[in-house]
């Protein structure tokens, strides 16, 4: 009862003029950083962080959290309309969102993506609110072995997320794993394959890699062919098409709930990486679909799954951030800096003393997700029209945005060079029919897998996987991978 009173109090807390004003300023800021490729949520937070100096805790944290929460909502639109992930976690949305846009269904895809983002964000908040009183035991369920096994679970999906053959998916995934091996290795404190170059000392960066792989081949395609992204359909996108996309989410409630739950759980486990959740949700959706073969050619379920997971994971990521001050995602690491700047120290004591602030933050997350989705839905018909712009108009604009976005992410000209290096790789992969999504998945998970395998063996020995939660993850892994086989077996059993 007392907790419900706290929830009500937290809900009322955000209806303060200063909190509302900072949220209203932060939401468009975060959306723009999501829409423009290269300008990730991390850049948005890094820019906003100095503004929190001298602010009160709730408005200061609301500024950061609201901007961060909506970045992926903005990024989903770019992934669908241009086939370029607005931010790296939107890469999974490209797989089916972009083919939908090419089929003239951009409005529908955007509607589905925005509704899933907004509702997925709300789901993440519900998870957070539900576990706020028991944050610590929840976080303590997941140790290094569980983090390692979740990373393994993610990496096993490299064969599933591709649109080509399983072999090609595996080859692309292995290439991603190989690229992730470059640079400084935290366990041994030794840099690998760095060729005496300062740039490679820290390995390849995700932004040039994701943008190069996805953006450059599309830009080349648009300029060579000169045709628009949408190859059929009416350039006058109607609002009803967007609403159809929104309604589609409600027509797939189980898919939405499953994907959001995956997002929230991946968010709770620090170390797995924010980019993983949408891929795992996408792969799970494909595995359980009656028509998995249609994924990759413009299936709306392939948009709903990654986008629900993408925003739901931020609610989950707040769990370890508040419970132990361990950031659940890269964005949460900067948010944690915001806490410290504002004189707050997340951790067990923090939750005992500032539970009201925790609830207030959950409410900020909920408001930002819903408001951003609503605003974007209103503009969606106009945004979808971009897909009908002619290629020779769109390509140079895109190239300029990609180059500037990449440079601005770290102010490093070498990043721009690598966008073109990875662009060439992406182009060759596209021509040869290799999916680029498994490469990204292999790349983002390798570090976590390597590090937590090392820690697990050092701390628990070779049988580290026998802890209860580890066994559950292994069971889910076997079930997920063997789902098509089990389905066939079950069908045969019923026939006989």
């Amino acid at each position: 009862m007392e907790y419900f009173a706290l929830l009500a109090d937290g809900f009322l807390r955000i209806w303060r003029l200063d909190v509302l004003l900072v949220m209203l300023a932060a939401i468009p800021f975060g959306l723009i950083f999501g829409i423009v490729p290269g300008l990730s949520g991390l850049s948005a937070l890094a820019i906003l962080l100095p503004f929190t100096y001298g602010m009160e805790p709730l408005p200061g944290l609301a500024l950061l959290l609201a901007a961060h929460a909506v970045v992926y909502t903005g990024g989903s639109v770019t992934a669908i309309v241009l086939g370029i992930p607005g931010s790296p976690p939107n890469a999974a949305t490209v797989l089916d969102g972009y083919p939908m846009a090419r089929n003239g269904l951009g409005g529908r895809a955007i509607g589905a993506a925005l509704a899933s983002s907004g509702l997925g964000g709300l789901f993440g908040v519900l998870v957070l609110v539900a576990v706020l009183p028991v944050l610590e035991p929840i976080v303590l369920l997941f140790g290094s072995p569980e983090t390692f096994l979740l990373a393994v679970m993610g990496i096993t999906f490299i064969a599933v997320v591709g649109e080509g053959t399983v072999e090609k998916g595996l080859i692309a995934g292995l290439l991603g794993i190989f690229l992730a091996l470059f640079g400084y290795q935290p366990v041994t404190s030794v840099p690998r394959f760095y060729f005496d170059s300062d740039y490679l000392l820290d390995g390849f960066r995700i932004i040039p890699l994701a943008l190069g792989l996805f953006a450059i081949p599309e830009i080349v395609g648009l300029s060579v062919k000169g045709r628009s992204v949408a190859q059929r359909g009416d350039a006058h996108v109607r609002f009803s098409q967007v609403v159809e996309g929104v309604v589609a989410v409600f027509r797939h409630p189980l898919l939405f709930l499953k994907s959001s739950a995956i997002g929230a759980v991946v968010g709770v486990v620090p170390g797995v990486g924010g980019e993983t959740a949408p891929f795992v949700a996408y792969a799970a959706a494909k595995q359980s679909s009656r028509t998995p073969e249609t994924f990759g050619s413009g299936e709306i379920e392939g948009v709903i799954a990654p986008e629900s997971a993408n925003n739901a994971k931020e609610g989950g990521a707040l769990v370890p951030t508040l419970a132990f001050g361990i950031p659940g995602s890269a964005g949460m690491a900067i948010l944690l800096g915001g806490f410290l700047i504002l004189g707050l120290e997340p951790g067990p004591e923090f939750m005992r003393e500032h539970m009201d602030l925790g609830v207030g933050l959950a409410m900020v997350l909920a408001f930002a997700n819903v408001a951003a989705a609503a605003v974007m839905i209103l503009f969606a018909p106009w945004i979808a029209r971009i897909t009908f712009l002619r290629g020779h108009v769109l390509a140079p604009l895109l190239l300029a945005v990609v180059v500037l976005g990449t440079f601005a992410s770290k102010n490093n000209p070498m990043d721009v060079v690598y966008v073109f290096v990875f662009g060439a790789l992406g182009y060759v992969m596209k021509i040869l029919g290799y999916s680029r999504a498994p490469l990204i998945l292999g790349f983002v998970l390798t570090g976590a897998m390597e590090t937590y395998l090392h820690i697990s063996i050092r701390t628990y020995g070779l049988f580290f996987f026998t802890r209860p939660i580890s066994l559950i993850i292994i069971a889910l892994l076997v079930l997920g991978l063997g789902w098509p086989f089990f389905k066939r077996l079950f069908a045969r059993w019923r026939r006989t």
Partner: protein
Amino acid sequence: MKFDRALCFATVIVTALMFNSSAGAADAAEFYRGKTLLFMTPGSPGGGYDTYMREIIPLLEKKTGVTVLPVNEPGGGHLLAVNKTYAAAPDGLTILLTDGEASLLGQLLDAPGARYDLLKMNWIGRVNSEKRVILFTKSSPYKTIVEAAKGSTPLKFGTTGKTDATNIGATLTSHALGIKASIVTGYKGSREFVRAAIQGEVNAICLSESSSKRFSKGGRLTPVTVLARERSELFPDVATIFEQFKLSDDQAWYFDYHEAFAEIGRSIVSGPGVPAERVAYLRKVFAEILNDAEFKKHMAKKRRPISYADAAKLDKSAKAVLGSVSGARKKEIRHIIMDKYFQ
């Protein structure tokens, strides 16, 4: 007569030198006014290094008229930022708030990717340095560090990386006291291995005194010793390693050596070859900022204490760590820190 002439000559020389030096300082002040200065840190936005840097920037801009561009350059185990500062143009317009322990260790161990010589760089001033504290968890097989030194069950220390301060303290202590230890590296930061410690993955950690204070609240982590000759102000009841053991000269050497590492702490440094008057000017400005009572109070409130030390002291500590060890000793330290506890 002769004396008068000599006195007169000396007066002229001293006046000329004074004039020259004040003219140099004035020139340096004039040089910085209106320029853009890159202030680098190996920390990510929002972290400890970043907070120190961003709190200093407004004061630095106000005092010098310079426009400061903050640059977060994490990566390469904090070596990347030192490399970049070392290779920057020698104009005094690039400074670094460095991770002293990681930078010193990188050079001492000839770490791959370390392309700098701290002995040629210009120390400007120390922002903060803290004593190291060893903490045990409830799951630790020992209650005290003395028991651990006698015991046969290995202690499991959690650290972020081999060249990190948390590892230097854990390995040198284990070696000096003959503790059977096993080090687990790879945790992303102190908070993550504190979580691992509470979960029982590891049962000992070595942290700075302020972090130890934070994480020992609630009693799940117990501070067992301070790795210094004097007690920590934050833990007046915790005995130092020198109080708990009758250390031989050789054993004491490891702890003194470790303290010299920690002395550098978070310090500001510029690359080599910067004109002396600009270095002197920056040292003067930072001394004023970091000794300002109001600023110190403000930072203490933010749990980011200032413990200023001047360039001469930092230079001495750097020489003690890098210049005072023989080739054989260096090899031994490398073995202790990088290999001995990782089998």
